[in-house]
């Protein structure tokens, strides 16, 4: 289990991470969310032993993370971190060896993953000759080459088309099913929502929301109602408990204070000809926007 306990990190006078705590168990996929500069990368760097926390403790299976343990960790950085002059094969051998793997282990793992990511044909090509998407695939392959117990993915989907996002998701879920602990950050809330079980939202290095996604959504008071009928936006805005009405294509998205107002809204609009009335959980993006005060999607 990865345990981050009361971790604080200062850069000079600036507090990058403020008393952060969370746990990731084997098989869990954990989301670390926050706007740029929220402290996500600093947290990842502390977990991977690149930075020492100013205070607090980070342990993996009860032991402090040091260079005796890094062989069990896989790390995909936000920016490309490939040695572009090397070929794909050389790159895999280089990073694999740094993770303590033997040549046989590297060869076997590399071939299997390159096939899975459909990039086996580029094995002898130099990294700099590959497209951005394929470079991202290679970076991902090198991060999971050692079948890590702990996998850290900083913006893993950047530069990927939807088909490759699905491919990545499939592999991430497979690794989680095999018992890996996975922490990742993403700007795309729909990705986080799809397979992230637990999350922390950071604002200025401090956790403003944390827990299981299911619980977060359940405990989030505001709900959305999708309404389609012969009524106007004004008819909805005047109802008690309605916070916001948004006109979508041919329906309205009505945000209410909490679920106790569902009946009130329903009773107020039943005089109209209503063909759709669906109560929905809020999206993670809405929760995030409210908690952080700004949207990733801008």
């Amino acid at each position, binding site marked *: 289990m990865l345990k981050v306990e009361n971790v604080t990190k200062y850069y*000079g006078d600036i507090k990058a991470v403020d008393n952060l705590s969370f746990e990731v168990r084997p098989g869990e996929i954990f989301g670390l969310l926050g706007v740029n500069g929220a402290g996500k990368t600093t947290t990842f*760097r502390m977990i*991977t*032993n*690149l*930075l020492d926390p100013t205070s607090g403790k980070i342990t993996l299976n009860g032991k402090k993370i040091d*260079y005796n343990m*890094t*062989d069990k*960790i896989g*790390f995909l*950085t936000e*920016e*490309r*971190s*490939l*040695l*572009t*002059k090397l070929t794909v094969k050389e790159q895999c051998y*280089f*990073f694999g*060896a*740094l*993770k*303590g*793997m*033997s040549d046989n*282990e590297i060869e076997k793992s590399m071939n299997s993953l390159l096939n899975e990511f459909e990039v086996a044909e580029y094995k002898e090509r130099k990294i700099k000759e590959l497209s951005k998407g394929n470079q991202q695939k290679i970076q991902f392959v*090198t991060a999971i080459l*050692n079948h890590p117990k702990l996998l850290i993915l900083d913006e893993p989907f950047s530069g990927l088309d939807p088909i490759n996002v699905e491919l990545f998701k499939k592999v991430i879920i497979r690794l989680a099913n095999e018992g890996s602990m996975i922490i990742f950050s993403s700007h795309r809330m729909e990705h986080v929502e799809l397979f992230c079980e637990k999350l922390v939202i950071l604002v200025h290095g401090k956790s403003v929301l944390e827990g299981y996604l299911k619980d977060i959504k359940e405990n989030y008071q505001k709900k959305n109602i999708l309404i389609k009928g012969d009524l106007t936006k004004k008819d909805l805005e005047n109802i008690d408990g309605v916070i916001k009405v948004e006109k979508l294509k041919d329906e309205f998205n009505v945000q209410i204070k909490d679920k106790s107002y569902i009946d009130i809204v329903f009773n107020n609009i039943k005089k109209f000809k209503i063909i759709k009335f669906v109560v929905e959980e809020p999206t993670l993006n809405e929760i995030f926007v409210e908690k952080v005060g700004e949207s990733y999607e801008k």
Partner: protein
Amino acid sequence: MKAMRNKLGFLISVSLKRKIKSKWFIIANILVGLLIIGLLNIDTIINYFGGDFNEKRVIYVVDNANAYESFKDFLSKSAILSFENENDTYDIILTQKSIEELKKDYDSESDKKEFWIVAFNKSEKNVIDAKVISKSFIDTLDYQLLVGAINNTKTMLAIRDYNLSEDDINRLFGTIEVEREIIDENQKSEDEMMASMFTTVFPVVVLPFFILSIMLVQNIGSEVNDEKTTRGMEIIISSVSPRKHFFAKVIAGNLFILIQGILLLVFGGIGLFIRSETSTLVAKGSFDLTEITSKLITPSIISELTSIIPALLILMILTFIGYSLVAGILASMTTNAEDFQHVQTPIMMISLVGYYLSMMAGIFKGATFLKILSYFPFISAILSPSLLVMGDATIIDFIISALIMALTNYLLIKYGLRIYKVGILNYSSKDLWKKMIKALKEK
């Protein structure tokens, strides 16, 4: 993982392979090899392609003073002394033609090689008068030899007029045997020391050291910089400690220049071997390779080098390590290749200063300033050998320099590692020095 790897060894081998297996390393060494072999045999190459210099200079002598034989004799002897090739330099022909007729030949034989005219006439005042005519300018050395031979001819003719015997002439012209005694036999003449310095220390020690130290700095710097700018460093340092990474770069860099140094020696050896097999003689000038190569294999020079080689090697290795430590530390602080180009300039300047000071050692014998500088880290390895050959330094001075360099390296490792650890993961030049000073203070 079942099989544990030695990550330091792996990083060293990867770094070394990356340098040596590069096609540019191979191309550069082929070119360097050809250049060194070519330079060591440059006179042979020049002679092979030929030119005016190796054609006989034709001299027509218009002799109205019975001077031809003496002039020919003197000029031939001078040529042998100056060019070391017997009777191959001048074709001295006695002609019955007049000066005017010969001058006409300049026009009629314009497509042929040039010839010179030396005309002798009797003179009441000077025994003989001489006139030298040429179509174009005569080389200084040739002209000096001509004038010398003319003057000697005049003296010879004058002596003949006094009916001196052969013995008298020999006594007049014979060389005086000077008996020379130097009380301190260990002291060599300044000329000998200068010769040793320019023929052995410079080409064998100073120049290769200078070239290799620059290569070392550039190699380590560019490799660290490459890993930093591609952000590959993040993955590397998340797997191996900065300390291990730093030492891997330093060791690989030094092994690389060791290989490069050996290659330079091999190229030099091949060049000298070819020279010994194909050597041809050329005019003596300010730069005489034959003399340099022969000096290199003089027993006294070899024994001198042998006595200082262990100390010199230790000092050089320590200095190379020092250069690689500085290069690694500075490269870790830079955020792009351009920045490293800037920071490596002072390192190169230090090396260049050492190079020039080393040359100065031959001019300013016994200079206290140079002696003090010879203890300075980074400069010592390049300056001390010159001072030693000039007799201004001893093995003890070498040992002191080596100890100072070793202490410098220790401090560079102790404090430089702190900078390296922070520097390699720093991608912003903002507050760079503040960050580095802070890193220095941290334990």
